[in-house]
């Protein structure tokens, strides 16, 4: 029995179990201290993994890269001959730079390059795979809130008010659960309750984004 549940802990952590399976695991966690400890350990591993920094190579590889670029590539911007595909691609990109095209990019990147300062572009959210670990969840929430803010004008003002009210309700619930958890971090009820409230917030934002974006 314990092995059966232990092997599902990763899927539980990643929130990929069906509601019934999740319920089974949560029931088991109430009685199994070993599995609770395993889950905490797994959560820690995932959190650490998601926080791993990008480290540049110990030596500058650019000279080797440049030397390996195909012959004929060494041109400057103002002396250029384009192939047709290059011209099309350049046209698309220049249009984007000039802001003529209001394209939305699908951004599946999980971690930004802090050193480069490349900001995440506005994106239409596909179904975002979110685990209950903090880093991924917070990023998903921020993305969805930002996208919803951009599409705010498409929704009825009354609907926007209702959404803000609902989000405030959930945020209060999350804050209360977190405060309780701070007093008793290992309480399985509080842990699963907090995870549930977070999922609820994520679901609300996803639904609201879908409604705003389909032109409703």
């Amino acid at each position, binding site marked *: 029995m314990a092995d059966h549940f232990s092997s599902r802990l990763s899927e539980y952590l990643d929130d990929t179990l069906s*509601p*019934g399976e999740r*319920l089974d695991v949560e*029931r088991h966690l*109430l009685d199994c201290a070993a599995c609770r400890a395993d889950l905490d350990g797994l959560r820690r591993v995932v959190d650490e993994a998601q926080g791993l920094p990008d480290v540049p190579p110990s030596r500058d590889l650019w000279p080797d890269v440049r030397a390996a670029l195909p012959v004929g590539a060494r041109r400057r911007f103002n002396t250029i001959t384009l192939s047709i595909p290059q011209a099309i691609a350049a046209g698309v990109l220049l249009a984007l730079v000039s802001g003529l095209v209001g394209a939305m990019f699908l951004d599946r990147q999980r971690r930004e390059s802090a050193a480069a300062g490349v900001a995440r572009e506005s994106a239409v959210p596909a179904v975002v795979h979110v685990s209950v670990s903090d880093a991924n969840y917070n990023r998903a929430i921020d993305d969805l809130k930002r996208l919803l803010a951009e599409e705010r*004008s*498409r*929704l*009825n003002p*009354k*609907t926007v008010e*209702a*959404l803000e*009210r*609902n989000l405030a*309700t*959930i945020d209060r*619930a999350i804050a*209360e*659960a977190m405060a*309780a958890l701070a007093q008793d971090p290992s*309480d399985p*009820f*509080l842990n699963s*309750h907090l995870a*549930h*409230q977070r999922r*609820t917030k994520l*679901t*609300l934002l996803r*639904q*609201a984004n*879908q*409604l705003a974006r*389909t*032109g*409703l």
Partner: protein
Amino acid sequence: MFTFSAVMFAAVVALQDPAAGQVPQDQARQSSRPGQPFDQTFTVARGTRVDLSDCLGSVVVKTWTRDAVQVRTAAGHRGEVKATLTDKVLAVSPGVTRWPAGVELQLVDFELLVPAWIDLRIEGRECGIEINGVAGNVTLKNSEGDIVLRGMGGAVDAYSIEGDIEIDGGKGRVRAGSSDGDITIANAAGDIEAESIDGDVHLNDVQATSVMVSTVDGDVFFNGPLQATGKYRFTSHDGNIGLSIPETSSATFTIRRYEGDLHVTGLTLKAVGDVRRGRRATYTLGAGAAQVEIESFDGDVTLSKAGARVRGGSW
């Protein structure tokens, strides 16, 4: 004789051939002029789905025995109603533009007559939806407007930001979500998942053997029998959770509370294990057959004998 047989053969083939049910070319795409009523009937093959998008107004769906879909709107709206049948999808839209800030748009009220087997997908902003007797799968989404479903036979997915959702009778699985509105499900036999943030959830006389209800601030009311093989889960952060069940029910209750109170009225519960340890307590009623999990952070939990139904107000 040969000619007669050939004609009869051709007629038989035509009757059996799915292609014989294809929509004639002149019915494949229909649209109305702005302000004019729309009334078109499309012959549809089994497996067809009706997609009504950008609904702004209301939709009433009823069934008939024909393998056809009739789409009607009243006169007087500004949109140009469009209906296009391609392959197995009848796409219908009111032709109104998207919501521009500060502009009042006229509403379009649809009436649909459909075969019971049809699948439906209806999405809209301010869109009241009423569906009666559809046995196919139904997916509904709106920002505002009540959703009322009666006698449904297939799977139901209904989501609204502000509207109330009312489902009466149903055989298929139900997933209902409303952020601000109330959800009421009665006499349903399929699995139920209901979720609300600020609205209440009422389940009355459901025969479902899998029930999951969750609210953040809204109350949860369950009235009626528990199925012996049923698995139930009721969760709320701040809302009260109340079950009103027959005295002869057989159930095991696992109740987790953080700060709310537990009230028991008219039921003889037997505590299992130490009810004071931690925040989880287990009780059995009768033989303990149905599995009921109740979880509340700050709301009260009330288990009472049936006959003392409470709708709204305090427990």
